[in-house]
C-alpha cells in the first residue's frame, strides 16, 4: 500500500523515536510511506487560537501537496491529524476561505485527499495480517492505551468513537498485549498548556498516570507526540509537585508493535525515553 506521510514538526525533534518506529513498522508491514514534498507546519493550537484563517490555510498547503502527489495522507501526530481534517472540512465547505487560500498559494484544492491517522493506516492492513507478523507476543505487558483528545474529537473528524475509542486497543491485542480497561483513555494531558500554565497541566498529567496505575498498568501506549512527551518527561515534576512516585514507561504504539514483530529496541528509539522502559522490554523478552 502506498500512502503520503506527513510527519509534522515534533517528529523531527522531540518525538524522533515516533518517526523512527513508524517508518520501520510501516516498512515491515508493507506500507510504503511517501513524505509529502516540502511540507510545512500545521499551525497547531497556536494558529487556531490566534486566527481562524491561518488555522485552515497552513494545513491547506500540505493537502495541496498531497493532492499533487496523487496520494492520501497518514498522520502520526494527533494534533496535525486534527488540523488537517478540520482544514479539509473548511476548504470543502467554505467557498470564500477556499478561494482566498487558493489565490494566495496560486493553486486550488479539489478536496480529493483522504486523511488518516496512523492508527487507521496500520489497522487498515487487517488485524489478522498484523497478528501473523507477531514473533514476540507482548503477553507480559499490561498496557493502558491512551488516545488523548485530538485523535477522537470533535466528532465527525475523529478517527474513532470520541468517548470510548478502541483502535489502539485492537492493534495491541493483535500483538497479544494485556490491554486494560481504564477511565482516562481520552482525557486531556494539557498539551502545550504545560509551557504556559505548568501547575494546571501537571495536575492533568497526574490524574492520567494515577488512573492508569490504579487500573494495573505497567506501561502506557500513546499515539501523539505531545501526550507522550507530557506523560513521560513530566513524571519527575509531577512526583515533586504531588509527592507521588510514578515511574511508568510511556511508549508510542508503533514501538510496541515493532517489539512484537521482533524489531530491535534500539532501532525503535526505545533508548530515548525519560522513564527507562528496559524492565517492560525485558518482560516481553526484548
Amino acid at each position: 500500500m502506498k500512502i503520503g506521510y506527513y510527519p509534522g514538526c515534533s517528529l523531527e525533534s522531540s518525538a524522533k523515536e515516533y518517526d523512527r518506529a513508524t517508518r520501520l513498522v510501516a516498512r515491515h508491514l508493507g506500507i510504503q510511506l511517501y513524505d509529502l514534498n516540502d511540507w510545512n507546519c500545521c499551525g497547531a493550537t497556536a494558529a487556531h487560537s490566534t486566527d481562524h484563517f491561518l488555522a485552515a490555510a497552513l494545513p491547506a498547503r500540505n493537502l495541496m501537496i498531497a493532492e499533487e502527489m496523487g496520494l492520501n495522507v497518514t498522520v502520526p501526530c494527533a494534533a496535525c491529524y486534527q488540523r488537517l481534517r478540520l482544514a479539509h472540512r473548511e476548504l470543502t465547505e467554505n467557498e470564500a476561505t477556499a478561494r482566498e487560500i487558493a489565490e494566495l498559494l496560486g493553486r486550488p484544492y479539489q478536496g480529493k485527499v483522504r486523511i488518516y491517522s496512523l492508527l487507521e493506516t496500520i489497522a487498515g492492513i487487517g488485524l489478522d495480517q498484523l497478528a501473523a507478523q507477531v514473533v514476540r507476543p507482548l503477553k507480559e505487558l499490561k498496557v493502558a492505551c491512551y488516545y488523548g483528545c485530538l485523535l477522537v474529537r470533535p466528532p465527525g473528524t475523529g478517527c474513532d468513537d470520541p468517548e470510548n475509542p478502541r483502535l489502539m486497543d485492537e492493534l495491541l491485542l493483535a500483538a497479544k498485549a494485556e490491554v486494560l480497561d481504564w477511565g482516562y483513555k481520552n482525557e486531556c494531558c494539557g498539551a502545550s498548556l504545560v509551557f504556559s500554565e505548568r501547575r494546571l497541566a501537571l495536575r492533568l498529567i497526574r490524574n492520567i498516570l494515577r488512573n492508569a496505575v490504579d487500573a494495573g498498568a505497567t506501561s502506557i501506549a500513546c499515539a501523539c507526540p505531545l501526550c507522550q512527551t507530557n506523560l513521560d518527561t513530566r513524571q519527575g515534576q509531577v512526583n515533586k509537585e504531588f509527592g507521588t512516585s510514578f515511574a511508568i514507561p510511556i511508549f508510542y504504539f508503533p514501538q510496541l508493535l515493532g517489539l512484537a514483530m521482533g524489531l530491535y529496541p534500539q532501532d525503535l528509539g526505545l533508548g530515548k525515553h525519560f522513564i527507562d522502559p528496559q524492565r517492560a522490554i525485558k518482560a516481553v523478552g526484548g
Partner: protein
Amino acid sequence: MILLGGKNATEKDSVGAVVRASGHATLLHCYQCGKCTAGCPLAFGMDYNPNQIIRLLQLGRMKQVLGSRAIWICAGCWTCTTRCPCSIDIARVMDSLRVIARREGQTAQGRDVASFNDLFLQSVRRYGRVFELSVVLGLNVRRRRLFHDADLGRFMLARGKLRFTAEKIKGVKEVRRLFSRQGAPVRTRKERVKE
C-alpha cells in the same frame, strides 16, 4: 428565546462578532445543562466555568468574558463540543474569544499562553516549520525565567531530541504569503508601519 444582550451597541456588536467568527448562532440555544463544565478537564483552574462563559455571552457581557482567565486556560480538548446537547461548538467559541481578545490587546489574563502562540507562529512564519527550541527559550526569555524546565532541557539534549539549527523549507515564501493578509497575526515591522 434569549436575544443578544449587551449594555451598549459596542458590546452587542462584539457578541455578534463571536457568533459570526465561530459560525455558531446556536450559542443562543444553551439552556445551562452544564455538561461542558462537567467534562472540562480544566474547569478547576478557571474563574468562569465554560457554561458561565456561554451565559455571559448570551447576556452580552463581552468585557467580562474577554477579561476572564477561563478563555486562556482552555486547552482545546473539544470535550465540551463533543457532549453539548445543543451542538454548540464551545471549543470553537473559545478560539474565537482568544482571537478577539488578542486583536483587542486584552491578553493580560493569558500573557504566557498568548506569548507562546506568538512565538510559535513567528517560528512557522520564519522557517515554515516550528523550531521547538526557539519557542521554549523565547518564552523563558520573555518571562525572565531562563532556567525554567532546564532539567528537561538537559535530558532532551542527552537523548538527542533537541535540534539546534532550523532549516527553512523551500516553500517558505508561500507560507509567509498566508501570513500576509490584513490583520493577520505576527506581522513584520514593515507591515506594522504600513497598517
